[in-house]
């Protein structure tokens, strides 16, 4: 079963592990050099676009939140706010991207998560995002 409701061309989680139920989890994605966005971003120096780093973080947060819900199949959360996000290092193709999410605050259908993205143990991006659950 897929970890998120996205199609395979827009999934940034190959696997996801809940490390603290309802609170913390980490996903991994192999950034295959053949992924289409690397061809044009940029032709002479392929890098993962910043917005896709945010997307990877949001998918990890969604997988964590979904793991707390008693539902069959992935839940379609929406990215509601990018509270903070900092890209520390560029992310090239051919690496394993690790996306960790920690639930900070839950209020009704909204939840804020702290997110950290790592490559080979190094932080490449971090921030805080808000997801909204389906009504």
């Amino acid at each position, binding site marked *: 079963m897929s970890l998120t409701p996205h199609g395979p061309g827009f999934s940034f989680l190959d696997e996801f592990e809940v490390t603290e139920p309802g609170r913390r989890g980490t996903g991994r994605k192999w950034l295959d050099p053949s992924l289409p966005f690397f061809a044009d971003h940029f032709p002479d120096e392929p890098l993962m676009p910043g917005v896709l780093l945010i997307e990877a973080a949001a998918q990890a947060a969604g997988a964590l939140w979904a793991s707390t819900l008693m539902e069959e199949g992935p839940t379609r959360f929406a990215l509601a706010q990018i509270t903070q996000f900092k890209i520390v290092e560029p992310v090239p193709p051919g690496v394993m991207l690790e996306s960790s999410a920690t639930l900070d605050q839950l*209020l009704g259908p909204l939840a*804020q998560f702290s997110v950290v993205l790592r490559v080979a143990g190094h932080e490449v991006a971090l921030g805080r995002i808000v997801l909204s659950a389906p009504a």
Partner: protein
Amino acid sequence: MADIGLDDLRNLLVENCMLRVPPEEIQWDTPLFGPGSLGLDSIDALQMTVGIERTYGVAITDPAVARQAFQNLQTLQQWLMRVRTSA
């Protein structure tokens, strides 16, 4: 226990919400949500709970409690004083 003043709560709004008006225009009875209000939304409410927990050490997890406390800065001050007194 220190009082919670109007400027303290204005700062809470400035730091945690996407305000569309200058903070000095916000009075004790200015509605925060709904028609004729500051125009805050549910995401601002979530961020308010984060800021309140960080600043005052009080957690709000029940949306009904948030709705009651976040009517205006007067209701928020009264709620904060009450829960801090009973803690």
